[in-house]
């Protein structure tokens, strides 16, 4: 076969470690925003505040949800971009095998976003707010279920091929109890923990809301611990190589930092508690990243990809990122320093 000298696009435009670092950092931020939103909505329904959705803390949360959704979507773009860059071979394939469900994600997210705005803007009473929030929650639940299913399938290339042979129409729902269900439950419990934290921080000046926040945070952390252990127990043959990999350090960091966050939260050391929770999340995201590599051993090796760095464009990205962070900080500063009405 004659092959023309066309450019090779199967190269990484930066070293793998740099792309992995960016992926882990941005995914942590995405999970934090998603936890505040998804966990926040869940927490709002489970908190049973006096006055329900009329409670000031509930109203503040409802007003904040659309902005949290914007943050979640925006912060979700970058990690998906970086994971497709390196793991495209398995991620695209898994997405295609579950194509209709995957394509439903932006639609469900769009509907959830619209419902959150509707809940935020409506003046037709709390019943209407509840309905909009429940619809938004349904949309967010759908997104979480599909993401967990598709990314679990992406780590099982053999299962992808079998599933495709059985049904190539994009209607495969990968629902392996170990690989998907516990993974999803752990993600939801993690989001609930962050949501409980956010709920408490927002209601720190209100005794009832603060107490509810503490309880939600504690319950979320316990649930995350139980589901996380259950997920680990289902790793089977992968358990040993994972325990021998760098992922164990991430897991340990995640558990320790999360545990440290709890007493700090109770003592109202909110900044330190949030920082600790963030570090814990970072550790978990790193462990998740390593676990993917362990699972894919023998099927896909990201270190085998050729690297041809585009340092000039990367430098421009770095400059843009710094400018963007500055602009975001400045905009938030002028907005929150301004009086509430003029």
């Amino acid at each position: 076969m004659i092959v023309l000298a066309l450019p090779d696009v199967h190269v990484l435009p930066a070293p793998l470690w740099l792309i992995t670092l960016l992926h882990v950092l941005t995914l942590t931020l995405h999970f934090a925003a998603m936890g505040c939103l998804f966990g926040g909505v869940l927490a709002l329904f489970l908190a049973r505040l006096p006055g329900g959705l009329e409670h000031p803390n509930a109203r503040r949360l409802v007003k904040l949800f659309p902005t949290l959704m914007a943050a979640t979507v925006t912060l979700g773009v970058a990690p998906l971009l970086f994971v497709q860059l390196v793991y495209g071979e398995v991620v695209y394939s898994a997405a295609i095998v579950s194509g209709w469900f995957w394509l439903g994600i932006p639609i469900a997210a769009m509907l959830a976003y619209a419902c959150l705005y509707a809940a935020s803007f409506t003046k037709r009473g709390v019943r209407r707010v509840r309905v909009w929030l429940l619809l938004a929650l349904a949309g967010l639940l759908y997104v979480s279920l599909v993401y967990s299913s598709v990314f679990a399938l992406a780590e099982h290339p053999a299962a992808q091929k079998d599933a495709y042979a059985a049904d190539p129409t994009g209607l495969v729902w990968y629902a392996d109890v170990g690989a998907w269900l516990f993974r999803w439950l752990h993600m939801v419990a993690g989001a609930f923990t962050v949501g409980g934290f956010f709920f408490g921080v927002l209601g720190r000046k209100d005794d009832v809301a603060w107490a509810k926040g503490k309880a939600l945070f504690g319950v979320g952390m316990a649930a995350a611990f139980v589901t996380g252990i259950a997920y680990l127990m289902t790793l089977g043959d992968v358990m040993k190589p994972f325990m021998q990999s760098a992922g164990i350090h991430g897991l340990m960091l995640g558990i320790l930092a999360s545990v440290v966050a709890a007493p700090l939260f109770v003592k109202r050391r909110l900044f330190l508690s949030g920082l600790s929770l963030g570090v814990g999340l970072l550790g978990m995201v790193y462990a998740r990243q390593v676990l993917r590599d362990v699972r894919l051993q023998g099927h896909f090796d990201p270190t085998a990809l050729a690297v041809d760095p585009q340092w000039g464009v990367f430098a421009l990205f770095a400059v843009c990122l710094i400018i963007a962070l500055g602009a975001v900080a400045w905009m938030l500063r002028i907005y929150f320093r301004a009086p509430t009405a003029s």
Partner: protein
Amino acid sequence: MGYPFWETGIGYGPLMAVIAVLHVFVSHFAIGGGLYLVVAERGARARADLQRLAFLERLSRFFALLTLVFGALSGVAIWFVIGLLSPSGTEALIHTFVWAWAIEWTLFAVEVLAAILYYYGWKRLSPRRHMTLGWIYLVAAWLSLAVINGMVTFMLTPGAWLQTGAFLDGFFNPTYVPSLVLRSGICILLAGVFVLFVAGGHPDRRSRLALVRGAGLWGLVGLAIAAAGFWLYRGVDVLRLDSFRDVAERLRLPGMATQVMYGAACVLAGGLLLTAVLLPALQRRSVGGVLLLCALAVFGGFEFWRESARKPYVIHGFMYGNGLLVGEDHPGGEESLLDRLPYRTGDDGRDLFNRACRSCHQMEGYRALKPILDGTDEHYIEGALAGLHKMRAPMPPFAGNAKERATLAAWLAERIDRRPLHEIHGEAGLALGRRVYEARCGSCHVRGGYEDVSETLSDFDVKDLDDLLSDPDMSEEMPMFHGDAKERQALIDYILGWKKEGVR
């Protein structure tokens, strides 16, 4: 090629169009709308026009909701859908332009926050700071367009990237500037016409007239800039090269798209001048609605032209729409296509159809093959597959070997109506002859057009034509005639009839 093929049930073209068209309209409107809001706010504040400010605040709420909820997430949806429909193409784009995408992400983050705070800040921020947020939004949104424009135009005209593989060669490709000018004009046009539509229902006559006149001028300026961009586009040398001109001649779509675009632009220019600038009192919601549709037709026509001109590639000169790389496209080669497919359904014919044809064709439905192949046979299809790349419609060559060509031909033949054409359509004589010509010859030979053979055949008599249709060694890329005696005779009569009509 290394990815599974998604059997959607509906055509890839319509699926992509449904998501992309709406997003593209909204995303361009988002930029023009941002410019309109800040410029109009500045004017209203200078005149202390409270009515106008109230109008702008309402407009900004709609604008923020549309751009944030629909615009942002439909953009994500495009990303999702291209990954499903063309994973190899998406992979090529991401590997080549990941840092451009990352830059766009930073701009997107600024844009989203600025839009949110601009809307919430009407009563909270000082006028100066509020307008600053508007300008930040506008700059971020336009730069975001400038970045995405590099990747969109790259797919049509990758330029020197094909030789160098260098980021800058691909990004600042030959159609980058014309496209950016055109799209900037479209942004302003859409904003102007949308405001015209909204202002048509404004209750206060004086305010309405002022709004309508201003919006009409916006629309005209935007249209003029877009027209200048398209003029630059048409002047790009690379678009005049053989491969592009060839597509324009072989495919009617680009021509139809430009006709729609020109027609809508003329109606729009006249409508804006008359009902918005010269006689604003004539402006109504209904008139504004028609002008808005014309603006969408202008833009849609351009996008359709651009997409059609790129066929049969997803990245021109590099990758075909079915994911096959240029350089792997050797018709009649011995290399197996199936061996290159890690994801299989267990049905070889189905897998070959999916990989070779299905990105652009369904058996029935979108660009359906069944109506084209009905009345033909397995031998014809096998021969046609050998010469796919010679056909009038631009298509990639079949990338499998002879055995796979036969497998695919058999698979296709099972799904068509194999009765003779005279049985299917109940025709005879010249009508049948024309039908047979269209079915068995017309894909590669158009009378008076592509690969015309009228001149060559004009000297043939009945015997020559009969010999020609019976010749098994006529061409490797031309199927031998396998129709029945009635069809053969009808075809011969039809071709002989050309002499009487004159060759054309």
